[in-house]
């Protein structure tokens, strides 16, 4: 929801970034305030995942210009783990499998590093177990997944749900969801969207990257941005998503070319 004078959570100005010397982001401008849900849509290869990884601090992406301010801090100066502890969360388009690390241990270590950062006492295994049990309901996940290695042998949909479970436990200020809906059947999509809706509130913000308008029927965005060739070329309300669904991207790309 758009709230009159709420705090700015993320402010991106003229952000440019390279991968292997190739410019991918070519001047991104974006402002996200508390309580808002933003969607980014755009053709494959337009740089959506790159933007999400730059915001999360992936070392393979070199920021070549611009500024990113997160809750008033220079986000680009922070290590990835410090961004996470301060409330930035990226749900990966392709979550990694980590054989040998149990999902439960992973969640606990992650949760406790955030607690420590906030000056709070770490939760022991028992108390953490209670917390996890409660959060499992948000994504309707079976407790059996907790004792398996992180994402190992999970189906595509299970991996995505596991990402949202992590988000539910870490309670981010800024949740970035990179194509969390891709590859989900309609039931799983509803569960995931429902989970996200439960986690979004007036003090945090969500940036939802998606390919399909379908997700936005369940997670209603306040703003829809269209990204192409490393830039945001159009911003509108949720009706823009519908228009894109009907007309595709070409008309926008052509309009862009004329300008």
């Amino acid at each position, binding site marked *: 929801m758009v709230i009159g004078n709420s705090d700015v959570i993320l402010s991106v100005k003229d952000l440019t970034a390279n991968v292997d010397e190739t410019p991918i982001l070519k001047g991104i401008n974006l402002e996200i305030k508390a309580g808002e849900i933003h969607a980014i849509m755009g053709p494959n290869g337009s740089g959506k995942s790159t933007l999400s990884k730059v915001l999360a601090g992936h070392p393979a992406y070199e920021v070549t210009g611009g500024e990113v301010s997160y809750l008033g801090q220079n986000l680009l100066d922070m290590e990835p*783990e410090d961004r996470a502890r301060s409330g930035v969360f990226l749900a990966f388009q392709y979550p990694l499998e980590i054989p040998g*690390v149990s999902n439960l241990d*992973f969640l606990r270590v992650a949760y406790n590093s955030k607690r420590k950062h906030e000056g709070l006492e770490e939760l022991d295994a028992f108390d953490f177990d209670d917390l996890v049990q409660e959060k499992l309901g948000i994504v309707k996940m079976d407790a059996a997944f907790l004792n398996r290695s992180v994402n190992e042998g999970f189906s595509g949909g299970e991996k995505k749900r596991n990402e949202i479970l992590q988000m539910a436990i870490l309670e981010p200020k800024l949740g970035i969801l990179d194509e969390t809906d891709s590859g989900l059947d309609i039931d799983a999509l509803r569960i995931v969207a429902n989970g996200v809706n439960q986690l979004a509130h007036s003090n945090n913000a969500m940036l939802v990257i998606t390919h399909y308008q379908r997700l936005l029927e369940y997670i209603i965005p306040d703003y829809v941005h269209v990204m192409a060739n490393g830039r945001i070329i159009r911003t509108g309300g949720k009706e823009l998503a519908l228009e894109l669904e009907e007309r595709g991207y070409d008309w926008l790309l052509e309009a862009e070319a004329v300008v």
Partner: protein
Amino acid sequence: MSIPSTSVSVTSSAAQTRAAYLSHLLALAQRSETTLPWLRELRDHAAVRVQEQTFPSTRDEEWRFTDLSDLLAVELAEVGGAEVQAAKLAELAKFYLPEADQSRLVFVNGIYAPQLSSLHHLPEGLTIGNLVNLPEAAQQHLQTYLAKQTGAEEVFTALNTSGLSDAAVVQVRKNLVVETPIHLLFVSTSSPALIQPRALVIAEPNSALTIIEDHVTLNEGVYFTNSVTEIWLGDNAQANHTRVQRDNLAAFHIGKTAVSQARTSRYTCTVVNLGAKLARHHLGIHQTGEQTETTLNGLTVLHGEQVGDTHSTIALTKPYGTTRQIQKNIVDDRAHAVFNGKVFVPKEAQLTDAGQLNRNLLLSSKARVDTKPQLEIVADNVKCTHGATVGQLETDEVFYLQSRGIDADSARKLLVHAFAYEVIESIPLASLRQHIQL
């Protein structure tokens, strides 16, 4: 100006150094005493085998990547006895395993230490103790097994036998399942010393046991452990064997595990190599009967300038045998891991199934690994797979963990741990798994 010397004279003088060193080792080995005539005969026979051979150099195919030159510079002495200083007893007790608190044999510098051992409430039908204190009838029986494994003539195995004055003995009677794990704890306290632990394990038909063989140290000086363990599995017997090597970083460790498996027997071995400046372990498996199963899990973790060499030889000689082998190496700094895994499948060994996998994780650009699977398959109706991978920690994996608030260092540790997990998990004792924190 340097004086040119011919390569021939250089070679021969290096060869002379090695020959002199082998004689030095043999003389040291033979200083240990024995009063048993049959044992004296066995030792003399082995001494001749040693004399017939040369001390290995990197020109020997089997030692190509493992250079023993540094050992040649070490002047070794006799072991100082089996004493453990009172001040060190608490440190030693840390190696005790609660699950095996009443089934522990301790050897200090290769010498039996009854005051540190603990044998209580063990089932009748389990013979456990040191060779020379066993009743004569038992000794008689053991003669048919001791130093009778394939490969007994290899130079370091024969060197161990040439100085054999005692051994850890575990024998499980037919049909007996020993539930309590048995802990063979070999401790070094003496330096500079040649330490030659020896163990003999016999599982009679239909019996089962769990053995933990642990090589530890209370000593920071240089020593050379040359250890031999022989394991005999009768028909349908089952053994779960864990071998841990955590010698100090000045030490040299050469270990041999020789296993003979009769029909339908099952042998599982988990080897964890952590210590020593240079360590070599040779695991020799001989399947002598049909439908035998062998499972080998290996983990070597190396730092600094350590060298860790794992050689394995698996001979499947009869139909329906299976082997599963995984060897994982984690190599940091300038350390060097070596893996050579031989599998022989002769014509008689039809319908066998042999799988071997070697995975290496290199944590530094100077770390090195040499891996060589060596499958010699003559039988035509068999399933054999092997593979070797060498990798580094993936940036994406580290980043995934960082993006959840875990710092880069902890993320790397977690991933290294995860890599080792598969092997550590196969250690049957929780307390020992906990000890092996990387």
